[in-house]
């Protein structure tokens, strides 16, 4: 959960999650609907500026996080870009393979580029949320948005116990490895199987003990807690509107330029 660590250090950490959610949602929606190269690029840039200027995240870290989905985006873009055409089609670049041309036309290039940039913009929007808002704040916001109580509580518990179970799994794995449990394919498979079943069993037992511990603290069927104090962050709403307007302006300029 790399992003969560930075979310806790963000200058926007103490700002209410709702306006942050609103800004993300607005920018994301506009970016996806515009379906344009320049809007996508503008979005990822603006989000980078907001994350570094408002959240205080070093630009280096933002770029590092952008690199992670880049591989997926590149693969996705390529599969859209490269197609097969009959010989003699108007391609920009292509390789002849067995009587057909494998390559792309100008239209393909536009489509792949706009998809790539749109996705990059969307990733930027999601990073604005996840690099400035810890998961626990997010679940709190979902609750305020009247997402069913049960779902929110499950999200919270799952998030917390991902770490507990990951720790358990890691320590079992070390214990197995220290006794040569992962030498050879067959033995690795068997050890992995034991590990999975052990983690499952421990999760089961843990659930029972958590229930006891919650009972002891007066649990009556709902995991209501007190949120820390948030700054209202109302100024983020006009900012969200400004970002959306900027995106639309970029779209307008692009249309004008293309004519």
């Amino acid at each position, binding site marked *: 959960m790399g992003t*969560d*660590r930075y979310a*806790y250090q963000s200058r926007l*950490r103490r700002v209410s999650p709702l306006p942050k959610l609103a800004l993300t949602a607005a920018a994301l929606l506009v970016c996806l609907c515009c379906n344009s190269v320049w809007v996508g690029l503008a979005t990822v840039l603006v989000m980078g500026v907001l994350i570094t200027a408002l959240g205080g995240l070093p630009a280096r870290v933002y770029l590092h996080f952008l690199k992670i989905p880049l591989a997926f985006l590149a693969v996705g873009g390529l599969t859209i870009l490269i197609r097969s055409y009959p010989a003699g089609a108007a391609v920009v670049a292509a390789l002849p393979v067995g009587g057909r041309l494998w390559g792309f036309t100008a239209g393909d290039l536009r489509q792949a580029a706009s998809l790539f940039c749109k996705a990059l913009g969307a990733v930027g929007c999601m990073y604005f949320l996840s690099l400035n808002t*810890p*998961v*626990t*704040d997010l679940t709190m916001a979902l609750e305020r948005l009247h997402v069913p109580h049960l779902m929110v509580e499950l999200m*919270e*518990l799952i*998030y*917390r116990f991902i*770490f*507990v179970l990951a720790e358990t799994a890691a320590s079992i794995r070390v214990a197995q490895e220290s006794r040569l449990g992962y030498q050879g394919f067959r033995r690795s498979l068997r050890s992995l199987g034991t590990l999975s079943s052990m983690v499952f069993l421990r999760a089961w037992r*843990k659930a029972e*003990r*958590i229930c*006891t*511990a*919650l*009972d*002891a*603290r*007066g*649990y*009556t069927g709902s*995991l*209501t*807690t*007190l*949120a*820390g*104090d948030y700054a209202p962050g109302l100024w983020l709403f006009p900012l969200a509107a400004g970002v959306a307007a900027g995106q639309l302006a970029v779209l307008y300029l692009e249309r004008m330029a293309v004519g």
Partner: protein
Amino acid sequence: MNPAIETKALCYAYEDGTAALENVTLSARRGSITGILGANGAGKSTLFLNLNGVFTPKSGQVLLDGVPVRYDKKGLTALRRRVGVVFQDPDDQLFSADVYRDVSFGGVNLGLPREEVARRTEEALRRTGVWELRDKPTHALSYGQKKRAAIAGVLVMEPEVLILDEPTAGLDPQGVTEILSLLAGLRDSLGMTILIATHDMDIVPLYCDYAYLLGGGRVLLEGTPEELFAHPEALRANHLRLPRIAHLMEVLRQADGLDTHGTAATIGAARREILRLLKEEESV
């Protein structure tokens, strides 16, 4: 004055019928630390869950301030408010990834107004020394910090009786001292009644005012730590031992024929004892 909490002939059996507690009668004086000593499987944890109403005894009574506990919804709510339990593994207790929110949970459950929950949460976090960590996610805390956060989560309910299962297990020596000074502070400044289950014998003479030896679900011995240490054979029969210092004094007495009194179990007491022996030697 009534003891803060006591049991009378408490019996408890698991669902499969194995007896876990048999005729356990004990009491904890208000504003004291009572040690419940016993090996693994002696029934300490079962006893504590009975004291907090998570388990319902088969027979016998749990009394709070001399009044028997009622096992209806209202009675149980009152019991859990007045008797707080801190479990051995803090990962069993901390359910939220946000320390502040986890600690506030018990306060919210009491139905207190928002400001009061916030005040108590802050006080509990400060008292346990995790106030600076409130903005960190739970999984970024060390084991000792998690333990203190778990204690804060119970203190927020402002219980009269605080029960801790193996509070020192898994901590480094400094962590042990920190937790125990915290408990001694709660006893001395708030007059809290504290019960700790432990098999860490060296902490018993330092922090416990009274102690019970539990074995096979029964109370085998009770008394001040010094009185218990006068029965090393009973402790050893139950997979426990004397504190190291008390053991040293026993060896000096039995193997070397020194005239040590049997009760010195702390460094301070042993030092006085040795100085006394030296003085006697000089005067002879």
